[in-house]
């Protein structure tokens, strides 16, 4: 395992400059536009372990069960964007003819919104090709790690009652209703929701974020939280924010595609992870060769 030794847990470690010929200066939380390139501030998180409620739907003994909590480990430093991808960053990809224009008509240093999983992926691919580096959506585990104390799992209905499936539906419905979150549709400028203890900004604000993790139906063995079998549906991906939810890849408007009882995602956006070592190493890592 080799990695860049420059990192520090929870604070900014590296400011990565993406794009072309551009000053390294960063002042404060709001990078200013200076010419055609993209400046992306990164946060590098030290490796670590944490307990994580798994995403998806779970069955035990043929009835729904609460999501099992598993110990997850981030083994190498995780380099993730401090802010969500901005409307102006995304526009460069649109101008390049690669990305589809976002549904939201916002410009400048606000998060891009009105983008689907497919759009987010297209942007990551474009950025990777543009920079010769590997940029990708974080997995659910990586996002949760970066979100730290601001991570919220699914609105949980708890273990199902085999004699009464309705009980779980009512529990979940009431839990969600009780959250009482009001719609907050207008995206704010970068950093408006502040940073978490790890220095990552705007986590769980009013822009939900796409991840690379597929929705799954999993069956647990009856006596443990181990997953016996799982069927994933990669037409639907995990979306993170005020709570974790699941959306079809092509949904761009979280309100119509979204959750329930007053807590649908206000907006859909994303941030990316930067893979160290570029394409080759990333490919090797995916194949489990490093």
């Amino acid at each position, binding site marked *: 395992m080799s990695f860049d030794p420059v990192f520090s847990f929870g604070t900014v470690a590296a400011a990565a400059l993406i794009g072309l010929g551009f000053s390294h200066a960063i002042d404060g939380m709001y990078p200013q536009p200076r010419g055609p390139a993209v400046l992306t501030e990164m946060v590098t998180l030290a490796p670590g372990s944490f307990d994580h409620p798994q995403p998806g739907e779970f069955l035990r003994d*043929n*009835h729904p069960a609460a999501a099992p909590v598993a110990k997850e480990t981030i083994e190498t430093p995780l380099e993730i964007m401090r802010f969500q991808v901005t409307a102006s960053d995304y526009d460069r990809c649109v101008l390049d003819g690669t990305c589809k224009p976002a*549904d939201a008509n916002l410009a400048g240093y606000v998060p891009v919104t009105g983008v689907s999983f497919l759009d987010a992926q297209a942007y990551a691919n474009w950025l990777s090709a543009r920079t010769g580096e590997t940029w990708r959506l974080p997995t659910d585990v990586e996002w949760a790690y970066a979100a730290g104390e601001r991570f919220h799992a699914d*609105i949980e209905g708890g273990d199902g009652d085999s*004699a009464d499936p309705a009980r*779980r539906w009512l529990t979940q419905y009431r839990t969600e209703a009780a959250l009482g979150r009001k719609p907050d549709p207008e995206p704010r400028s970068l950093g408006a929701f502040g940073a978490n203890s790890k220095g990552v900004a705007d986590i769980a604000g009013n822009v939900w974020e796409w991840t690379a993790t597929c929705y799954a139906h999993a069956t647990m063995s009856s006596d443990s939280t181990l997953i016996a079998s799982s069927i994933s549906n990669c037409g639907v991906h995990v979306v993170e924010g005020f709570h974790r939810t699941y959306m*079809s890849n092509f949904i761009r408007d979280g309100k119509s595609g979204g959750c*329930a009882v007053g807590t649908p995602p206000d907006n859909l956006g994303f941030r990316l992870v930067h893979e160290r070592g570029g394409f080759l190493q990333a490919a090797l890592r995916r194949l489990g060769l490093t």
Partner: protein
Amino acid sequence: MLTRREALLGSVLTAAAVAAIGSTPAMAAVTDVAELPREKVTLVAPPFVHAHDQVAKSGPKIVEFTMKIEEKPMVIDADGTQLNAMTYNGSIPGPLMVVHEGDYLELTLINPDTNTLAHNIDFHAATGGLGGGALTLINPGEQVTLRFKATRSGTFVYHCAPGGAMIPWHVVSGMSGAVMVLPRDGLRDEKGKPVRYDRIYYIGENDFYIPRDEQGKFKKYDSAGDNYDDTVKVMRGLVPTHVVFNGNAGSLTGENAMKAKVGETVLIVHSQANRDTRPHLIGGHGDFVWEHGKFGNPPAKDLETWFIRGGSAGAALYAFRQPGVYAYVNHNLIEAVELGATAHFTVDGKWDDDLMMQVEPPKAIAS
């Protein structure tokens, strides 16, 4: 496609969600159901209906059906306009399932991994669990079995309802069908006298919303997901581009026209999962019409046109008295003629001059 947390009806319900998967709580709850006789029925594509008894020959049973969900492109008009269809069992509408009141309908729903979306089924004939929608949400590669008791008789819509914005989109992509729950002792007229049918046809009416390009031509998409954004925009206008019977503007005409003979009684079941319609048999009538489709109510008699509410299925019984070609239409004639909602019956038999004759053929106006 899904998703579990996608709200029903614009963010009201998370339930569709939740339970999903292969949970079959009914199994555990009702012990004596297990003792009931079982019958396995193979479904047939509309307008045809699987063989069934009009009067039940024995006590309640469990009637088993299997449907495979197929996502595939389908042509919906003579110009070759393509819908990225989502179907129950490969047809639009899905097949009609017939049981008797007091029977248990047990459906195994299969979502093959060649599909891309999550689907489920909401039976208007079923009680609780969002009509079964809450217990049947399946990803590609999964199957689920649901059983419900047919507690009331009538014709009832079923449709896909996988949460939030997915619901109307799946329905206008073709995912609806109907169940007919017959009274155990069969159909009765308004005086309680038994009535029978010699033939039954099932017509599912669909409104489609196909996006157009800059030139006004209908657009074609590689997959359902690709059309979603554009289609929703057309859907929100509430003006369908197509209103058709059985999935295609000409599906029940020509070679495929429905057939009957003079003297035969035909039961026409008509469903519309999304939008109101008003069937009319040109040159015929509805002898007995269950406009709401519910056989616990006496049928209306001698109707000229009947009204099927969006989200319901109705039934009309008619004995053909005259041979010829009959058009069966949605009597908004713009929808019938311009948008596609026309079917035909060809009826063989002997013409009855008493009912109609041309006393004098057309000729110059006598002055």
